[in-house]
Structure formats: C-alpha cells, structure tokens
C-alpha cells in the first residue's frame, strides 16, 4: 500500500460519505505527528524530503475528506467519475428556478435598506438547502445510485459557489 492509494485508508476510516469529523481530526493530528517535516529535522536528508511529500498528501487528504463537497467529489472519483471537471448542469428545473431567485436576491443586496438582513436570509436559505443536498448525496451514494449522486454533486457545487459569494458580499459590506 502506498500513500496515493486512498485518502480514507490514510486515516483508517471506512470509505463512505458519513465521516466522524472529530475522529478524522484526531487521526489527522496523529498522522502529522508522525510525518510532519518538523519530526524529521534529525533524520537523514532523504527522509526529510520524503516527509515533506507525505505531509502534503496527508494535508490534502484531510482537506478533501473534511469538506462536504470535496468529499462527495472524491468518493465519485474513486468510482471513476470526475464530477468536478464536467461542467455538469442539472436539468432539474425547480432547482434552477430556486437558484435564479437566490441569485437575484443576492444581486439586490447592495441597494437594500438593510443589506445584512437580506444577506443573512439568503445565506440561511442556501445553508439549509446545502445541508439537505448533503443528506441526499449520502443516501444516493450508499445505494449506489450513481447517476443521481452526480446530479446532487452538481447542485452542491451551485450552493458552495453561492455561499462563497455571500462571503464576498459580507466582506464588501464590512468595507474591506
């Protein structure tokens, strides 16, 4: 087994969408305690170089497993589906309508009387739906319903982007 095989194995966790985040964090710390370059200052230089690479893989693995979206994409990639590459557009028209409405609300924030109130409303709505989608993905993945799972990930991407934009607005309103 080598380090590039599977992120779940690195942390000794079962491959699946449900992840115990606290356990993941503990395992992450445990692995970095072992392989972080700081632990290799007195080791032969060859091992020092390898430690930099290993620690980078551990960091990457942790980043991807910790994020709901990246974790979903990673699981799909393990099944040979590069969901992040394809500009996969969902055909769910209700979903698209919702998206358009949320975006419109967001674009009106600047002119709103109480911009923060509007922003909070959009953010809350987006977070709720994002959480629902994560649950959906979990079910679809465990039932090997790949086609729907891919569609759900596409929707999750929308929300992830939207939430980023919300943050940017917050920043802007804070005068940064």
């Amino acid at each position, binding site marked *: 087994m080598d380090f590039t095989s599977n992120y779940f194995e*690195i942390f*000794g966790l079962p491959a699946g969408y449900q992840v115990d985040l606290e356990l993941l964090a503990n*395992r992450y710390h445990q692995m970095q305690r072992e392989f972080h370059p700081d632990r290799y200052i007195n080791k032969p230089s060859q091992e020092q170089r*390898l430690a930099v690479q290993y620690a980078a893989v551990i960091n*990457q693995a942790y980043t991807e497993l910790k994020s709901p979206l990246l974790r979903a994409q990673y699981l799909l990639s393990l099944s040979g589906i590069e969901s992040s590459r394809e500009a996969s557009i969902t055909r769910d028209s209700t979903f698209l309508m919702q998206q358009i409405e949320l975006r419109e609300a967001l674009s009106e924030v600047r002119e709103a009387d109480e911009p923060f109130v509007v922003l909070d409303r959009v953010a809350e709505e987006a977070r709720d739906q994002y959480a629902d989608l994560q649950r959906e993905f979990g079910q679809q993945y465990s039932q090997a319903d790949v086609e729907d799972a891919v569609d759900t990930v596409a929707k999750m991407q929308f929300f992830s982007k939207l939430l980023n934009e919300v943050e940017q607005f917050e*920043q802007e309103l804070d005068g940064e």
Partner: protein
Amino acid sequence: MVLLQISEPGRSPEPHQRRRAVGIDLGTTNSLVATVRSGTPETLLDSENQHLLPSVVHYIASGETTVGRRAYAQSADDPLNTLISIKRFMGRGIEDIKTLGSQLPYDMVASDSGMPNFNTVAGEISPVAASSEILKVLIERAELALDGQLEGAVITVPAYFDEAQRQATKDAATLAGVKVLRLLNEPTAAAVAYGLDQGGEGVIAVYDLGGGTFDISILRLSHGVFEVLATGGDSALGGDDFDRALAQWLGEQAALGDDLNPSLQRQLLMAARSAKESLSSQLQVEISVAGWTGELKREQLDRLIDPLIDKTLRACKRSLRDAGLKPEDVANVVMVGGSTRTLRVREKVTEAFGRQPLVDIDPDRVVAIGAALQADVLVGNKPGDEMLLLDVIPLSLGIETMGGLMEKIIHRNTTIPVAKAQEFTTFKDGQVAMAIHVLQGERELISNSRSLARFELRGIPPMVAGAAKIRVSFQVDADGLLNVSAKELNSGVESHVEVKPSYGLNDEDVTRMLKESYTHAREDMQARALREQQVDADRMYEDLLVALNQDGHELLSDKEYHCLEAALDDLKQVRQSTNHREIARHIEMVSKTSEEFAARRMNASIQKALTGHSLNEIEKGV
C-alpha cells in the same frame, strides 16, 4: 567502525548532549534571541543586561557596523547611514518602496537585480545584508551564553510575509552563517508560548501589532497540536505608522511646511514615538521639537490612530470569517507586539472580540520565547514531545493565464506543506515553449499581485493548439517557501525552478556577498566552508547511524547493509581531512547510497501508522 552512543528512546539526552538551538525574533523595531535551558525558555541578555536589541544598523566608511542602542542614538545625526525599520524593505522591489521611501528618510538606489539598496558611506547596502548584521550580533550573544556553536535557529517572520519576504529572511540568516531550522510565523510562536504556559485548549486569536507589521492569526489548540485556521494582516502597518501620523500632526502644529530635511524628519518621528509611548501610561504629554513646544492629550492621539486601528480590526474580521468562526468562538485573545501597549488598541480589540485580551507574557518577548520552544523540540532535545505546529500560507499562489489573469493553484490559508498540480495547454498551433509566470496574491488581475518568478518550459513537441498537456506543480515546504515545476505530459519534457523571487537574491548573489564579507580573510572563508561541510558530514553520519542501528538489519539485505556501512565509514574518514570539496563529494555519495533505505524506512513508518489506526479501532471496539 566506531559506534556512537545512543540514549534509550524517550529518555532525554545528557545535558552535554543537548543541542544548542535558539529562537530569534527579528523585528522591525527590536530583535531578541531566546533559548531553552533546563526546560525553561529565557531570552538572552547582552553585556548591559538588555534583552531587546534595537533593529538599527549604523555604517561607517570602512564598512564596519554598530548595531543596537548605540546605532539608534546616531539616528538623527547621521540619518542616511543609520538604517532603521530594515524589515520593511526585505524582499521588496523598488516600486514597493517608493511609497515607503517618501516616509523614511533614506537614499535608496536600485541594484542591478532591480532590488532597492541603501546608499551609505560604506557603499550600497542591501536590506538582506543589513539584517544579517543584526542576526550576527544575536548569534554571537547566544554562542557566548551557550558556550559553543549553534546547531541552528528558528527565525520568526510575520505570518503575512509573502514568499519574497520569507526568502529574503532566510538569505539574511545564510549570510549571517546560521542554519535555519524553520521559519516560524510570529503569531504562531506567540500562541505556542501562551498555549504551553497556560495549557488551554480551544480557539486562540493572536493579535500582533509591532513597529512595522500587523498580523492576526486564528488557531485551534488541541492536545499539543497548534493548528492555524486562518491568518491575515498587513505587512506594512504598525506603530511606525502611528508615529508618522503623529509626526505629521506635529509638523503642522509647528508650521514646518512639507519639505523637511532627513534630520528634521527623524527628529519629528523620534519625538512622536516617545510621546506616543508616554501616553500609554499618562493622559497627556509635553512635547518639545524643532523649536515648537506644546501639549498632546491622549484623545488627540486616539483620533489620529483610530483609522489605523480600524484597519487592523477589519483584517481580524476577515480572518475569523476565513476560519469559519464568530468572535464568540474565540476562547482567548493574545496580545503581542509593543504597539499593543497603546491603550486605545487594547480598548478596541476588547470591543471587537467581546473579551479582555491576555497580556500576561511580556509582549516584547513572547515571540522569541515561542520560537525557542519550537527550536528545542525541532533539534530533538525533547524526545517524545507532543507539540506540533500546523501552519498555513497567508496568500494564494498561482500563475498568469491569458488576458493577464491570475489562476490560483494554492489558496490562502492552506495548511503547509502542500503540493498541488494543475494542467494547462497551448494557445497556438505549433507552440514549442510556454512562459510560466508565478504570482502571489488574492486579486484576479495580475497587475494587483506580486510577481515571484518567471521561467520557461521549452521543447514542447509541435502540436495543434490545445493538444499539449502541461502540468504545473507547486510545492510549498514547511517554511512556506515555494518550488514550481512544469512538465509536458505527452512528451515528458520538464522544467523546474526553486522560486527565488524576482526581487530577492539568487544563490549567486548570496555566495558573492558571503565572499565579499570575507575578502579580507581568504583563509577564513576556506575554514568556514570546511567547518560547514564537516558539520553536515557529522549530522549525516550520526543520523544515518541511528537509522541503521534501528532498522538496518530488518530493512536491508546483508549486502546492502555493508555497502551503506562502508560508505559511512568512508565519510567518517574523509571528514577528518581538510578538503571541503572531498567531504562534499562523499556526502553526496552517501546520500545516493542511502536513497533506497530512506524510502523503505518511510514505507515502514507508514505501515506502522496505518496499523496504528486499526489497533486503535480494536481497542475502542469499533
């Protein structure tokens, strides 16, 4: 073959085996050196019993320097040859410092590499060379106190320092002849000092306002692991700016006009600084400068500096957001840096976080102390220690794409070390080369980002536009320093740069400067090269021997074992010689011979770590 003695794992080495290591806070205003003795960190004193070394270097025509308090005393009399706030110029281009230059009374000139130099009676002095003078004084102080040569130093840098500024700091250390164990972010160092002192767990916000820089870092501490969640700041904002705001006000009160000579500028700045510092403990202060006498009330100072403090608070907000946290999630706010003595700063930070910040550890010394603790762990003086620092890069890294845009490859606040790759393709039919322009910053337009390096990938086989697949890989090490390589995947053509920022020194510059500082003593240089190679050889010998004793028989065939053993024996013998080139060659040879052994050892560690998980699970009954 002579076998070295090795203490039992977990048992700390005998006192005389302790490795000498220090932490250095190389500040804009003041610098310090600290070490851990008998388990306790302490800052080291100079012969006048002072911890703080003012970061000021005074040059005379012969090239000799004075560093510290005595240099600062020359500041108003000989402003052009007395370099202060040198850190503000580290890793900066001539463009960057135009704005600074008008505020600081220096005569700056552009060097061949486009890097700004100070024009002094001793000739052109680079910021890196000036910094190395400060480091030399601190190292000398430490070697005297610890009675021997240092194994290495952890040198702190503002978390918000970019690649060029970090590289410049490392170059200064090389020039000063000390091995950098790690570049450590200042707020992380402060968190270590507090965290270990108070044993607290949870989220810590470190607010570090010094003379020339501002940093905010949000960390989570759990069971000895300090995980930086987000960092932000401004590498050109600090107490100096308070001084400038006040100096300008003083200039207005004294009706001095705009066109001030350097000496008068310095006088105003020094008066401003001293008045500002007095106001931290009194309500008003009498000022007498440039023929003007008057009174300054604390409220007046507050009015002048409020906009600057607000700027720091906006950065705090952003970092909290980056960390995905709210002010109430923060368990402790730690204050670092001389400027946090300004009461208005404390007031506003208290308000912003809704809690009283911690100020128990001397804000001047806390960073050096944290760095010393880290240095002690790194050199292995505390075997089995649980402390680990997981830090992040402060600014995004990427490359230029069509239309002058920056494509980010590694985002800010990513934990280091990190390796990321992204694929790009050619724009024109038959394109055989690709220019790679490495950038750092948050904005999309490259005109708003810092240019770090440019290199070319040549020899791409001619193909139609879009057919070539060029993978650009970024690797950032634990010091926050970047390496970039590019490879065309169809043909295997490759190109590689260690990113030496466009504004920084390249290796040749450093070598040349090293040489220059030894031109008067050639033997010195030889002796130094020899000593360096010997230290390297000893390290390698010792480290590999430990490894061989631990795992050699298990992981190597008899033949392999003896081969490596023989190479080590050779190294030991050659090390006795005075030929530094020969030693270097043998180091290289041993390094090659041990490559496979290293890989197997790492592999074994991985297996062990992975089995560790499953054991845990069995224990927990999962």
